[in-house]
């Protein structure tokens, strides 16, 4: 059970002077239950890559299969496979259109042809996941909300489809630090409570390093690194050429170790780092 890409290449506007190959012979396998973060510099092809995962873009070459079904078969199975993958685009709040928050979140489930009851339940669950109080918000207009709240409504609109794989393209772009933390917290909660597969696109390593079980670093339309966060951080040279930074915590620990402090430099959270640094400093005082 996985999303699998075989030799996928995509070219924008082929056979014109504007021709541009955005991703080049990508081979990937994303297993169910993973929390994958796709990281890369602007123009590295990460957004193009994820748009292949639910069949929005058709690869110029190669195939994309979800749970063994080719997304571009002309069969009902392909359509069903596509609907297993939910996609939250960049600035998803720009897609809101209904008069009430309830109606907007219900748009997706309605298109699935569900019963009123089922739709109602799904909207409630989705709003709960993104931390919007149903009684308070359901009947309000989405356009009266703040940017962060609008984004949550839009994400709820995708969650209400109850996909098995959830793709989020830069879900924190343009939010203040607090809004960013809240969105990420909700995503992690969703991941932990529902067993959904999450694929998160970002250009900021710090945001995703703590959450993801697997990091894929894109550079120039190719996968340059693929592995657990710790494995990926061991390749500072490749990260540098890809234009992404090691999170500051890891960078600090590495620097301290280089200067001779006996610490573990493979930690990702600030709390762990503080603990290891204080113990290391404590040991030194003793001697």
């Amino acid at each position, binding site marked *: 059970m996985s999303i699998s890409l075989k030799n996928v290449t995509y070219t*924008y506007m082929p056979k014109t002077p504007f021709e541009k190959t955005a991703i080049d012979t990508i081979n990937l396998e994303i297993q169910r239950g993973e929390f994958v973060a796709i990281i890369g510099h602007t123009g590295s092809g990460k957004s193009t890559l994820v748009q292949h995962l639910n069949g*929005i873009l058709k690869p110029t070459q190669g195939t994309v299969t979800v749970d063994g079904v080719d997304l571009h078969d002309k069969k009902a199975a392909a359509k069903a496979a596509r609907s297993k993958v939910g*996609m939250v*685009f960049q600035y*998803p709040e720009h*897609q809101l*259109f209904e008069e009430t928050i309830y109606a907007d979140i219900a748009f*997706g489930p309605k298109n699935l042809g569900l019963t009123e009851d089922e739709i109602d339940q799904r909207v409630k669950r989705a709003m709960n996941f993104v931390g919007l109080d149903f009684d308070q918000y359901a009947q309000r207009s989405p356009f009266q909300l703040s940017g962060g709240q609008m984004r949550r409504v839009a994400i709820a*609109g995708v969650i209400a*489809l109850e996909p098995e794989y959830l793709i989020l393209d830069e879900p924190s772009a343009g939010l203040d630090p607090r809004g960013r933390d809240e969105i990420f917290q909700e995503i992690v909660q969703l991941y932990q409570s529902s067993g959904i597969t999450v694929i998160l696109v970002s250009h900021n390593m710090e945001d995703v390093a703590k959450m993801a079980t697997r990091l894929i670093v894109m550079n120039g339309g190719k996968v340059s690194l693929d592995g657990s966060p710790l494995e990926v951080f061991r390749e500072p040279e490749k990260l540098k050429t890809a234009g992404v930074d090691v999170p500051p915590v890891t960078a600090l620990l590495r620097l301290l170790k280089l200067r001779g402090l006996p610490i573990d430099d493979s930690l990702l959270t600030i709390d762990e780092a503080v603990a290891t640094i204080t113990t290391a400093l404590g040991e030194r005082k003793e001697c």
Partner: protein
Amino acid sequence: MLTDITLGQYFPGKSLIHQLDPRAKIICVFLFIASIFIGESYASYALMAGFVALVLALSSIPPAMIAKSLKPLWIIILLTVGIHVFTTPGRVVYEFGFLSVTEEGLRQGFLMSTRLVLLIVVSSLLTYTTSPIALTDAIERLLKPFEKVGLPAHELAMMMTIALRFIPTLLEETDRIMKAQMARGADFASGNILRRAQSMIPLLVPLFISAFRRADELAIAMEARCYRGGENRTRMKELQHTGRDWAAYGFMLVFILILVYLKFTAGKL
């Protein structure tokens, strides 16, 4: 998807035609369009077709691109041929039912459709070889003399520039919203007209909102930079006629003179 449409159509290149002053190109296109209506004989049409073929060759625009610009209009062309073939009175060549095909009709149909094709090819050559910015610049300069009688040339050109500038942006936006709604199960392609019109709502509402937002942002950005219209404004790239452009005018003049000559001497071949 939508972004593959070549709107604004500029096809970058370094050919002679690309390098002509945009004003020269606009004037020549207008002259050509006017002169199309001088031609009546096969000889003059052959000359016009030859002229267009020459410009096309000089512009090094792939003919496939030109064919693409004709594609949306072939129904109109076909209709023109049909109407002329069946409605022109004259010597009947063929008859079925109440419809009759006349010799004059065939001739008229052929010439009219050629006229249309030449018109479209020439005007798309203009947009293929001239960037939208150069085009509006040229229009502003050409309209400048009319400012004395109250025509707001600079403002018109600015409006056009802004409109052109936002076509790709709005297309991209449309594309993005469409994808997002499709990812939520929206279906834009099936159902009858009413259902399809209804299915556009999730696309149009966000699109309008974003267009208004962008307009507002742009207005504020322009005001913040103290923009206040065209008076005393200088520009980075002044348009300048060079030898090439005068040669183009000369060439155009010779072409028109030959057409006029053909009209009065050769008559209807």
